[in-house]
């Protein structure tokens, strides 16, 4: 008798502990979507680097050091220095902060406002939807970069303005996708039931419709993140984004990087790689997230 409880206890110990929902979802995601997990790992790395830039960067990213100007990658400067002798690695590390700040700011705001407008349009339908959709069509008729360029030219090139300029072209793109999902949700019996129960429009939209478009919302958000980073880099490259001496990847690609492309190729190579890697990571993660959340694309 004395042995039995002990055996039962051991059996309990050997049984795997039940996973929490989030943890199990993460493990499942990593196991089934390796590329997506790789993208997520790069994103986490970027976030870490951006958060702890002060501790990770070996040099002050804006301090000129003419004694080391245009040095090739070496022990002292792993990724070389630019035409002002500034350490390229330190500028890349601080540049990740700019990229993520603008990227997250623009894509979260753009996707959220797009989702609200998309759901609102689908719910109210009729004239409101018609007007909203035509306004969205007007914005959609401009290529992303052209609209962002025009907005920066009007607003000026501070970081908050840059976020607004990148966010605005994203709103109609998100609104369109969310609206199509919301249209089918609007016809669901529980929405009719909520309406019949006399709930307010705001409550129906916020409590019953928005949570049901979270999957396309998250997918759009991650897709926009990569685009926003690329757009910020493009605007900075064109001289309309972040201004010197602040560190930003697109900014690192202009000026000296072009002029010294033949004699100091590291000036263009490393920021270029950083931009490509970040966009690639967000795209991989976004694609995998779409596969995971879209029931039609789910594979077992």
């Amino acid at each position, binding site marked *: 008798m004395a042995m039995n409880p002990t055996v039962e206890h051991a059996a309990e110990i050997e049984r795997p502990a039940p996973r929490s929902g989030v943890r199990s979802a993460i493990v499942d995601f990593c196991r089934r979507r390796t590329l997506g997990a790789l993208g997520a790992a790069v994103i986490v790395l970027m976030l870490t680097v951006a958060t702890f830039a002060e501790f990770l960067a070996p040099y002050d990213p804006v301090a000129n050091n003419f004694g080391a100007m245009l040095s090739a990658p070496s022990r002292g400067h792993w990724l070389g220095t630019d*035409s*002002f002798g500034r350490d390229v690695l330190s500028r890349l590390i601080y540049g990740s902060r700019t990229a993520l700040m603008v990227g997250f700011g623009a894509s979260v705001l753009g996707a959220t406002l797009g989702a609200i407008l998309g759901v609102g349009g689908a719910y109210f339908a009729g004239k409101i939807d018609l007007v909203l959709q035509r306004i969205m069509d007007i914005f959609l008729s401009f290529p992303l970069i052209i609209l962002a360029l025009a907005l920066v030219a009007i607003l000026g090139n501070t970081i908050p303005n840059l976020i607004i300029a990148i966010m605005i072209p994203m709103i109609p793109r998100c609104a369109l996708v969310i609206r199509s999902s919301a249209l089918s949700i609007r016809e669901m019996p529980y929405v009719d039931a909520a309406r019949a129960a006399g709930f307010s429009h705001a409550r129906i939209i916020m409590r019953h419709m928005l949570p049901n478009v979270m999957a396309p919302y998250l997918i759009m958000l991650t897709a926009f993140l990569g685009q926003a980073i690329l757009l910020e880099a493009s605007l900075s490259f064109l*001289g309309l984004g972040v*201004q*010197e*001496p602040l560190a930003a990847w697109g900014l690192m690609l202009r000026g000296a990087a072009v*002029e010294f492309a033949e004699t100091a190729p590291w000036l263009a190579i490393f920021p270029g790689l950083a931009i490509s890697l970040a966009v690639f990571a967000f795209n991989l993660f976004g694609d995998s997230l779409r596969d995971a959340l879209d029931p039609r694309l789910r594979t077992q």
Partner: protein
Amino acid sequence: MHRRIAHVVTLATLILAVAVAPVAAQQDKPRSGGELVFVVPSQPPSYDAHQEETFGVIHPMAPHYGTLLRVDPFEKTGTKPVGDLAESWTISKDGLTYTFKLRKGVKFHDGAELTSKDAKASYDKIIFPPAGLKSSRKATYASVEAVEAPDPSTVRFRLKWPESSFLLNLASPWNWIYRAETLAKDIRWYEKNVNGTGPFTFVEHVKGSHWVGKKNANYWDKGKPYLDGYRALFISASAPQVAAIRGERAFIQFRGFSPPERDQLVNALGPKITVQQSGWDCVLMVAMHHDKKPFSDKRVRRALTLALDRYEGSKNLSRITIVRDVGGVQVPGTPYATPPAELEKLAGYGKDINAARAEAKKLLKEAGVPDGFAFTFKNRGIPHPYEPIGVWLIDQWRQIGLNVKQEFVEASAYHPMLKRGDFEVAMDFACGFIVEPDLDLFRFVSTSDANYGKHKDAVIDELYVKQARAADPEERKKILRQFEKRLLDEEAHIMYTLWWNRIIPHNSRVKGWTITPSHYLNNQLDTVWLSE
């Protein structure tokens, strides 16, 4: 044996010299024909040089016009006036009357003959423009009382006071001679049309693309121009400009390239590229708004200039952009430039940068400016040399505890911004066509439109007038040094950064063009030719 070898070598050298001499002479002899294609990094806002201030007007359009005098196209300092439409001139003993005899047989492109009425009408438009008509250099002719045309071939300028710079000022490349009859009918006609006496006639202008001119068969200087025509390509970004020269689609760009761009071209084209370099009558300055705190305090302004290590900056920035010389209010190496020993006595020009920065920090503390004080520095949205100098300035100011943010303003909106005074600290810039204190320093007079920092200083105003009227060059130099000390040191109204360095790498086929310290000079193209 050695002697025999020596004889053979000498003989061979002689034979080679005799054989090559005619070829070399032939290469130096101007050759007619060909179209000169050049790049212009700016655009003409209008066609009227009297009111414009950009080389975007001078470079494509100067070949259509003549001026009374011009700067000798073969003289490197760009300070020797020679006759263009004026054949000769005399100056009265009291220095108050300048009389010019015009060349005979000079014709406008429409066939009309040039007379003194045309020169008078053009200068009246420049010096005494009717209300509402802009004249950019009117203020530099304040000494002129009247322009007269006593007979068809004589033009006379009567001055209110003698002015040593007057003759040079008449060699201005902006003072194109227009037809009096045309101006009488419509004084704005030249804003949109071309009719000059220059070596090339107008063919076409496609906005944003190109400007084309062809040889003027009736040009007064027989045998010139050598070229059949020219084509100016408007390209604003520097990378495509370099690509145009590198790909031999264009022969030259007359403003200048940066050192790395020069190196790119030399490495790519080798002997096909000829590089001409010169000091440049252009300087970037920093304007500090005197009505805005804390820059209204001269201790703060002085601290800002003390923070700059100009010598180290010159050594390093000259490797990456078009600046080079440390100087005072005149282009280094020119007659009225500050001798180095005197320069070092001015605030921010000493060789001990640590002591200067310590003094700067002390001054900021005394003025109540806290460590980490933040302000915005407005800069002009042009890559060279504005961007690198801006980055350098911010780094220098960071070293005395200032936290400066840079804001670039688009080039076309920059002048209006300066004029509105919409800045605390901003990049100011000046480019002259001739190195001459009267022309270069007028901007610092309290009433000048270009006094963007809005300082009011009766001492500066008085010293400016005194130097302008000083007949003795040595006396003038002394007054200029007082002016400079007051401007840059005692009051620190403005700060000079570094003087520019003009670098023109051009296709070696381009001959007959000489670099000068101004990119406004030598653009008539009458002496330019293309070798085989």
